[in-house]
């Protein structure tokens, strides 16, 4: 194992910042106030005043810096090594994205700035909407949803609103058993009922299964393509036709869109609504659970229901505006511009504004998010799309699929592969062969850390018993993939006890996950000072 990047080293212990406190320490020297003293109790109701902040840490600047640097060194990210977390598309986030996001015009803009002073930001959002529409094959896009799950909710609310408007509300949504858990949750949150449907023996949904449950009380289907087994839903068009024939909509969870980038468009497969996870497919940080972004694309029929505000580009007269900023098409001359809504007025910002927010949209489901979505994330995704271009995006999709198939082929001699067929961006194994030896999926995941890899997704999707779900992404080269495959093979052959007691090289050993969930300690209190 000596050739592996995983090793032990000098890793500092570090207490909580509260426990570093020492009375009187300061990080800054506050200048003497040059305005008169105001006693807080004279201006703030006394019941709102704190008399004492228990345990408030008193630390110096160097204490704070060392504290956070040490903690950061306990971390593992895609900048450290391979992060094959299935269904999460943990691709490398190019640093140029960060450069662009830090341009003062983006980083220091304020959402309350008038439109006339935010034209660059609005242009970026407008163009990103068009690019995402082009990539996914949809007509319109909203950038508001703050994550994939909020995108799902947005989609479900729009579908429900559509049927309410027709006067014949529909109550059900079909969900295959390979779906992400957020799908049925979003359906329920939107006031609809999830109708489960089983995938066929090949790991994909069959038209017959959909036909059997699709009726005129069903608002549509929520499908993930490629699905969470990493398999392409080959019957997607037939399934779409079945759903459309009964007046329903096809929602696609775009979590796995990386596999299709520049190769196939969901809109062309009959999908009516799709959310795209910018933090997956478009290389923005996953950042500790947020902020992400889950823009939603729709076909024409659902456009009136998109959240407000919408961004529009005004028809401008080139005589009046000598420097129009046309959207550079992402691909060729054929790239279409969105038609402009009629009847917009000049509003605040005056006639010099090319890009404007439109709030007048009577059928809209309303606002989903304060202001306009997670703008900083949008900038990074825009930078990625522009840097890659159409050929680059296609290449990313192709390499992601090639890499996953390479891992699948490399490991199927040592791990049980329940669906042995070409995969898309990820492959799913089980621990069936290892259980006979005496260790399981969780043990394998833990042991991988000793070799310097982030564990894959485990125990999902639920249709595979004790699943090990591997998504290498396009970021790894052949040597990296070979290292991972080799580590996985070695683990399969190791002594069961060694695997069961892993990890051995991490700062802390095996944690009691059940106890952490049953008796979580969520808040520091002075009484637990250690």
């Amino acid at each position: 194992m000596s050739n592996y990047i995983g090793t032990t080293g000098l890793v500092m212990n570090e207490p909580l910042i509260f426990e570093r406190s020492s009375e009187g320490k300061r990080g800054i020297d506050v200048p003497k106030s040059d305005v008169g003293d105001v006693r807080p109790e004279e201006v703030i109701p006394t019941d709102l005043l704190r008399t004492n902040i228990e345990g408030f840490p008193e630390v110096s600047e160097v204490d704070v810096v060392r504290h956070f640097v040490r903690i950061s060194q306990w971390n593992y990210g895609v900048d450290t090594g391979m992060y094959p977390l299935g269904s999460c598309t943990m691709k490398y986030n190019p640093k140029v994205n960060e450069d662009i996001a830090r341009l003062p015009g983006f980083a220091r803009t304020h959402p309350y700035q008038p439109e006339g002073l935010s034209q660059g930001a609005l242009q970026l959002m407008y163009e990103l909407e068009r690019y995402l529409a082009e990539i996914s094959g949809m007509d319109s896009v909203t950038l508001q949803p703050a994550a994939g799950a909020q995108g799902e909710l947005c989609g479900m609310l729009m579908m429900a609103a559509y049927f309410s408007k027709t006067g014949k509300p529909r109550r059900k949504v079909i969900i295959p058993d390979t779906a992400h858990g957020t799908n049925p949750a979003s359906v329920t949150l939107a006031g609809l009922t999830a109708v489960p449907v089983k995938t066929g023996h090949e790991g994909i949904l069959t038209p017959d299964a959909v036909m059997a449950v699709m009726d005129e009380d069903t608002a549509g289907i929520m499908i993930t393509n490629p699905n969470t087994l990493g398999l392409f839903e080959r019957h997607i068009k037939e399934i779409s036709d079945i759903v459309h024939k009964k007046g329903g909509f096809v929602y696609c969870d775009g979590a796995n869109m990386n596999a299709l980038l520049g190769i196939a468009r969901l809109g062309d497969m009959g999908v009516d609504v799709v959310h795209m996870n910018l933090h997956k497919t478009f290389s923005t940080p996953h950042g500790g659970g947020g902020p992400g972004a889950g823009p939603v694309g729709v076909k024409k029929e659902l456009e009136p229901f998109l959240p407000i505000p919408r961004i529009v580009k005004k028809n401008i007269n080139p005589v009046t505006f000598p420097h129009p900023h046309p959207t550079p098409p992402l691909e060729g001359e054929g790239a279409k511009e969105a038609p402009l809504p009629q009847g917009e007025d000049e509003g605040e910002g005056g006639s010099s504004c090319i890009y404007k927010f439109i709030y007048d949209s009577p059928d809209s489901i309303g606002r989903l998010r304060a202001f306009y979505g997670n703008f900083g994330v949008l900038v990074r995704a825009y930078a990625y799309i522009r840097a890659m271009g159409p050929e680059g995006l296609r290449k990313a999709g192709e390499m992601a699929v090639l890499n996953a198939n390479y891992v699948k082929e490399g490991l199927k001699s040592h791990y049980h592969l329940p669906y042995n067929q070409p995969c898309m961006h990820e492959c799913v194994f089980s621990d069936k062969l290892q259980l006979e030896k005496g260790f399981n999926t969780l043990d394998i995941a833990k042991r991988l850390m000793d070799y310097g890899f982030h564990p894959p997704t485990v125990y999902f999707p639920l249709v595979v018993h004790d699943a090990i779900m591997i998504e290498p992404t396009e970021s790894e080269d052949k040597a990296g993939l070979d290292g991972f495959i080799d580590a996985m093979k070695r683990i399969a052959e190791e002594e069961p006890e060694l695997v069961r007691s892993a990890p051995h090289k991490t700062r802390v050993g095996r944690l009691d996950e059940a106890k952490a969930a049953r008796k979580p300690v969520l808040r520091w209190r002075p009484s637990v000072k250690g």
Partner: protein
Amino acid sequence: MDFPKELKYHKEHCWVKVEGNRALIGITEHAQEELGDIVYVELPERGSETEQDESFGTVESAKAISELFAPVSGHVVDINDDLADQPELINDDPYESGWMIEIEMSDTSELKNLLTADQYKKYIEEEKG
């Protein structure tokens, strides 16, 4: 694996202990083993209704959250309050102290849809494949 003869079993892995028109319900040894360490259980309120084959709550383990499906329809007369603080009772003792809810059955004829211990054992073996 232990499947007491005196209990009846539902295909979604709940057991039923029938006493008159009352039914005590929990999950099977097989179910708790598949789930692994159970960390949280969400049960219905006393006084609510259950419907056969419909969800009556969820059980969360370190691996996954799973729905609980009611083996019989009826009125929830009691729930196992101990599970709020000690969900591990389900792992340790699924047929006794790990019970979940007690139902006053509205239709005892539904019991004929349930499996015997032997049938259930065969069913899970087939499911495993």
